[in-house]
């Protein structure tokens, strides 16, 4: 595990006006790691995750990804985001596109030019993307939903489709922002199972969640955030069974 980190965060800061949401965060995320971020609401964990792909612009510090500091405003962030999948609490499937179009849109829009350069026709490449999208849908058992619009799907189905939509770009890292918080309880399981499955295939992940059981099961490392800092980190065993920081103890007592 001690090879080069995929993401290296150095002195990350984020403030909204005079409010410091993230205060000097540094950590490294290594290939294959599943980093779970926990903490009370308002602790900055979602902001931290959203800074990793610059959906929130950091106000200070560096985020090194693929040898580039993507926190630098001069960097073309789009290229780097293509390698970082993100799954949102509210699913955010494209409402005006069918399920299949949702999955195909980014690969087709972004990679067609490259494919044409490599000698494929546009139609061939689109068909390739379609087949790949269908394979992803088969994997989650929703191939019969390929041509419906998101408005007809359950929350669990939407989130599973949102996950494979991100996978369709072949990302190096997947970021999950409270992926089960907006789901009805009976649908949490199907989504967590898919995330576990993707995790077991070796995907590097950063997951913000309130599901402590899931965190314990899937995490290789847990970060506990408090007031915009990483208050404590360790393996799930260390952090859940033997927390050191009084704030961690207090938080775990409240949620477990």
């Amino acid at each position, binding site marked *: 595990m001690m090879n080069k980190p995929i993401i290296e965060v150095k002195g990350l800061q984020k403030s909204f006006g005079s409010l410091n949401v993230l205060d000097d965060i540094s950590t490294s995320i290594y290939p294959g790691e599943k980093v779970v971020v926990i903490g009370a609401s308002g602790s900055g964990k979602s902001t931290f995750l959203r800074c990793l*792909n610059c*959906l929130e612009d950091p106000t200070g510090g560096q985020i090194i990804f693929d040898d580039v500091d993507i926190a630098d405003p001069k960097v073309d962030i*789009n*290229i*780097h*985001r*293509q*390698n*970082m*999948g*993100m799954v*949102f609490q*509210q*699913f*955010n*499937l*494209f*409402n*005006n*596109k*069918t399920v299949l179009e949702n999955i195909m*849109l*980014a690969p087709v*829009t*972004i990679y067609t030019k490259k494919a044409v350069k490599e000698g494929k026709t546009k139609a061939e490449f689109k068909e390739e993307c379609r087949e790949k999208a269908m394979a992803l849908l088969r994997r989650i058992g929703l191939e019969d939903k390929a*041509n*419906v*619009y*998101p*408005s*007809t799907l359950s929350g669990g189905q939407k989130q599973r489709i*949102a996950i494979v*939509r*991100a996978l369709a*770009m072949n990302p190096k890292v997947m970021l999950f922002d409270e992926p089960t918080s907006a789901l009805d309880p009976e649908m949490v399981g199907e989504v967590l199972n898919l995330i576990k499955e993707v995790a077991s295939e070796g995907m590097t992940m950063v997951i913000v969640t309130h599901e402590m059981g899931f965190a314990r099961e899937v995490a290789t490392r847990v970060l506990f955030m408090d007031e915009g800092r990483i208050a404590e980190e360790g393996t799930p065993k260390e952090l859940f069974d033997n927390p050191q920081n009084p704030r961690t103890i207090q938080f775990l007592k409240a949620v477990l």
Partner: protein
Amino acid sequence: MNILLAASIIDRLRKAVIVDDRWKLYLEGLGNTIIIALIAALIGTVIGVFFAMVNYINKKTGKLKVLKVIANIYITIIRGTPVVLQLMILYFIVFVSWDNGLMIGAITFGINSGAYVAEIARAGFESVDDGQMEAGRSLGLSTWQTMYHIIIPQAVKNCLPPLFNEFITLVKETAIVGYVGIMDLGKIPGLIQSRTFDYLFPLLIAAVLYLIVVLGLTQLHHILEKKLSKSDRGRGGK
């Protein structure tokens, strides 16, 4: 008695429509009204959507500050002054040496409508969930690619009813061009009355023609709405 009444009505109608080929005047007026409204709607949509997009991108990214200030000034001035004054300023001052009244009318109403369309389109953009843009950007699509594939189609769908409301208002409002002597449909009844001394049928005919245009627009609105609402009904395809 009834026969006399009928005969008089037929005579008035004949004078209003047939004598001196007056029916051609209605068609000419209708044509001019449609030309002005159509060009104005085009100009207004382009200006309005452009400024609404400036506003939206400014809100999402903080860029385009100067354009946003220009948009605000434009909208404030246009919405804050009567269109008849805007028309007279363009007709008698700005384009004083240009004798194409029809185009001056179209440009005036285009600029005027643009301010209202900008507000309608702004509401349309704002009604699109923020998560849609974030999802597009998180996949590596650019702001513009996400606007094109995701945000604009949803915004258009959301603002279709007020947009068609604006187009309908626009068609009728263009009657103001009569103020500067342009022969649109609204001007024709007065013209015919000055020959026949009878307002009844010229006014009724002009009203019916306006109504037909508006009904056509309403129909177009329904067709577009049906086409765009397929994502609400679930199944894709045809």
